[in-house]
């Protein structure tokens, strides 16, 4: 099942790769991506799908949230979210 995360972050060098790399390493496939940047703040909407059923999106959201560049992470269900 596809999930959607909205990640607000400071767009420092490497921040985008850091976020996307973590998502993939923690057992998810990237299914969609949109990004916008305003001044010193950026936002990424990520559609992701777990590679196995044991993965919980809340866990990867918390793992993203502890990245230094990440300001906040919210989980948006597919029905609630706008298209990426």
């Amino acid at each position: 099942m596809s999930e959607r995360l909205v990640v607000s972050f400071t767009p420092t060098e490497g921040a985008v790769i850091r976020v996307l790399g973590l998502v993939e390493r923690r057992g998810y496939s990237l299914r969609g991506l949109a990004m916008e940047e305003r001044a010193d703040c950026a936002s990424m909407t990520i559609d992701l799908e777990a590679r196995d059923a044991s993965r919980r999106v809340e866990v990867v959201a918390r793992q993203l949230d502890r990245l230094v560049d990440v300001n906040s992470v919210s989980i948006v269900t597919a029905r609630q979210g706008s298209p990426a």
Partner: protein
Amino acid sequence: MSSAAQRVPALETEAVSGARLVVQALEREGVTHVFGYPGGAIMPVYDALTGSSLQHILVRHEQAAALAADAYGRVTGRPGVCIATSGPGATNLVTGIANAFLDSVPMVAITGQVASPLMGTDAFQEVDIFGITLPIVKHSFLIRRTADIPRVFAEAFRIASSGRPGPVLIDLPKDVGVMAAVPEPFELPEEPQQELDEAATTAANALIADANSPVLYFGGGVAIARAERALREFAERSGIPAVGTLKGLGAIPTDHPGFLGMLGMHGSRAANIAIDNCDLLICVGARFDDRATGKLDSFAPNARVIHIDRDPAEIGKLRAADVALTGDLSAILDQLTARPKADGWVSQCQAQKKLWAARYDAPGAGIYAPALLKELSEAAGDKAIFTCDVGQHQMWVAQHCRFSRPQAHLTSGGLGTMGYGVPAGVGAVLAEPDATVITVSGDGSFMMNVQELATIRRYRLPLKIVLIDNSQLGMVRQWQELFFEENFSEIDLSDNPDFAEVTHAFGIEAFTIDHRSQVSGAIERLLNTDGPILCHVRIDPRENVWPLVPPNSSNVQMMEKGW
């Protein structure tokens, strides 16, 4: 992070070279030792090091710089610092950085980089170390402007040691280190304070009060948070039997009556039985690692779980928690005041501990490594720090040595880095000069960083090395014997060099023993020698580590030795 900010001390008002700013930043952070190896791109920093207050420890391989810095960080609680040049110097740090990441050790790794105009051109000794290390750092910086150096270093040290610690990489292009600039003033944000969750605390106390067979399961997070006092007081007032992970050992003294031993694959039977039968598992600073849990769905199968951790991302990662408490471990533990009604359970656990206590009456006249390590540990006492390599000897140290503090047991828990022991010994001696630092190594691991004998000799570090030699890659051999139908593949090390002679060649005292009657004398000689010394211990290659939980099994399905 909070918007409230902390102002840093006054900086230079005149233009200063980037390399000089690096050294000043390290001095400002209170750094006294740095471990490193010079090379082309980092030469400006090495130029600035002369005349500074920093003591640079010149290792003989960059991996050892990172591993020594790791041990230094574990003992002091402050970031260990390692330095290397670009390209191979930087990639040689990678194992040590990963080691620190997996075990949440504060570290700042500084790498030289080719000059900015050459980056991205496949220049000599250019490698994207920033990109290579992204998965194994807590954070990283590539400094583009000389004026940013003081801010970046201040942030790096803050990040490395705050919250759940970890390694931070700073990549410094050569031109940024050469150019002079007036540093820009900056402010560091205040660290956010995490409020105690009163509702969760109440719920946790209720679970404890209701429990009939609770177990306290603690890990390396206790040492990282320096929460030993709070953990011990909680264990005392609750009376709950305790088990520790490999990295947790020493947080509750190993000879404490309520401590049942290490849990997991090579844990004590009493610890694993207690976990299997408990109705409440209180996990403090541990992460349900597979070596600790065995088959996860059979781990504490009937228990409710209270999970206490500094890092919210650990909650529910592998095992759902009935109550989660995140934040400062000491503050949380101090609020857990309930007592279970579990007198019968405590007696039962004590009986199991007595029943399954380790035996040291191995047959034969050869040296039984567990007995040697037990005797060594008792003789060395509370001032000892043990550093380990990885393999059978590592598990024997965990099983048979006594630890009264977690900083006394430096082991590569998460990454399992063969070659950790000797560089970690170097770091530990410098971090705590009054300690008796003992490295226990194996013949496989020792050869992975044998060159660091030169570092020990150069700085005359009084490291005691016990090299347990079974002429095999013992742990691999054990698994091939038990789980691969004795198809022994590439584990023979019978052509090892004469380790005592090798050590002599580095100018270090060394001797070999191979008979049980020599053990006491050898320990006395080790501990009474002022300088560095190596004791080469030949053991039976067929010796295995017991007990053992087979892969993908429940922790109570333990295999035992045959005598």
